[in-house]
């Protein structure tokens, strides 16, 4: 069954088509229009790891489209603690639902679930692996701000080793011909497989430990949190915690249309002084998670988004 496990599961044309549909669905995501395209469909939310935005936006997306949601709930009270395998869990939820959103601490879990399931699996993060549905909302945000995805200068900064959002996003950016700069502490560099893949794709990848020097040329700065929970010990985390802190005063030379993004939650990598600048797009980005996931679920379930959603829906 097709699913979205990595960005390799979508062609550039499919990405553009899903983003176009997302654009159409904006009034539905805002609650201005009722359009039950997924009425009668059930989403299974399987979050084996904590999640706020991803889980809630999947749930909101399905409900805005008239569908329903069942949740795994707290892993500590599910059959997982009794030793159930992921394969068995998927067999069960597969029977209850029409589509599954999943987050799991083990890398490769989403592909494993996809190989086990009959319904589409959407990878909501697998360990330090991939997070392609986040990438869809990131691309939606970038395109909304710049009108294009092509040829932009994008700086990805912070924890590039463990930050799965940047793993998926960098693949997509390279495919749209963006110039990608990776700014990270030495120990948190982008995994070599990903850098190799991007270079094999013909991308010129710049790797640096400097962030501030790259601000003025950037069209997008994508900040990430140091993933404390993935460090083997506290001491290793302490060495790199707070490596990058973006402050409003650092943006004086930035292009007017440059946007700052962050998958959230942030710790201290973006100072609150940035929130009131024209560059701050991270809260808009979080909202876009709903509309991007609405569109993605329609696509995976083979439901066509009407050209004129206003005519098809009911104004609320």
């Amino acid at each position, binding site marked *: 069954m097709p699913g979205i496990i*990595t960005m390799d599961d979508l062609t550039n044309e499919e990405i553009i088509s899903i983003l176009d549909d997302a654009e159409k669905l904006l009034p539905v995501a805002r609650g201005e229009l009722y359009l039950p395209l997924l009425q009668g469909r059930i989403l299974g939310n399987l979050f084996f790891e904590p999640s706020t935005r991803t889980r809630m936006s999947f749930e909101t997306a399905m409900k805005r489209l008239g569908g329903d949601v069942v949740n795994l709930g707290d892993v500590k009270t599910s059959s997982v603690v009794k*030793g159930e*395998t*992921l*394969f068995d869990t998927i067999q069960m939820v597969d029977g209850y639902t029409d589509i599954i959103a999943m987050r*799991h*601490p*083990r*890398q*490769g*879990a989403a*592909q*494993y679930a996809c*190989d*086990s399931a009959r319904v589409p699996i959407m990878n909501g993060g*697998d*360990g*330090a*692996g*991939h997070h392609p549905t986040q990438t869809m909302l990131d691309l939606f945000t970038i395109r909304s701000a710049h009108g294009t995805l092509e040829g932009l200068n994008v700086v990805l900064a912070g924890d590039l080793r463990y930050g799965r959002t940047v793993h998926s996003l960098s693949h997509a950016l390279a495919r749209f011909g963006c110039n990608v700069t990776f700014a990270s502490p030495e120990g948190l560099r982008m995994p*070599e*497989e990903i850098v190799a893949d991007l270079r094999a794709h013909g991308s010129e990848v710049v790797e640096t430990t400097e962030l501030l020097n790259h601000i003025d040329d950037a069209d997008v700065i994508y900040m990430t949190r140091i993933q404390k929970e993935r460090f083997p010990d506290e001491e290793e985390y302490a060495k790199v915690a707070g490596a990058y802190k973006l402050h409003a005063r650092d943006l004086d030379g930035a292009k007017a249309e440059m946007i700052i993004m962050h998958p959230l939650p942030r710790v201290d990598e973006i100072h609150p002084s940035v929130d009131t600048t024209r560059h701050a797009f991270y809260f808009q980005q979080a909202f876009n998670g709903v509309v991007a996931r609405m569109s993605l679920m329609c696509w995976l379930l083979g439901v066509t988004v009407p050209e004129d959603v206003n005519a098809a829906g009911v104004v609320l």
Partner: protein
Amino acid sequence: MRRVTAIKNGTVIDHVPSGKALSVLKMLGIGGSMSNPVSLVMNVPSKKMGGKDIIKVEDRELTQNELDRLALVAPDASVAIIRAYSVAEKLEINLTAEVVNVARCTFSNCITTNHREPLPHRLLVTNRVPLELRCRYCGKTQDIEGLVDNLL
């Protein structure tokens, strides 16, 4: 110069990359507990490879499944089955695009490290020379030496 005498019956594995013979023995499960005579030469000059290792296992003919295992450390090795001092069969090690259920992924946080998960272990060959494999599930590049320890 013949460094090891001809064998009457068994298997000769030639063109093993220099220094990999011990890994090959490990992959074949050949250790001190088996009674077959085993000859091994390492780092002998080779026109084709510069240097190579050769293994001769007496009274044992390798199966295709065992050959699949060899593909992980010696994909270009040539294998000859010997019967009555003559080469009875020449076997190819065909490194397929995917190595299935031969070894477990070497990445410690891969979903497949749970031994109870039932799906096959699948390693994709992403480069043949030098050999590079990635786990189908987690996508991690495999530590080839580590795979020898993770044989199924």
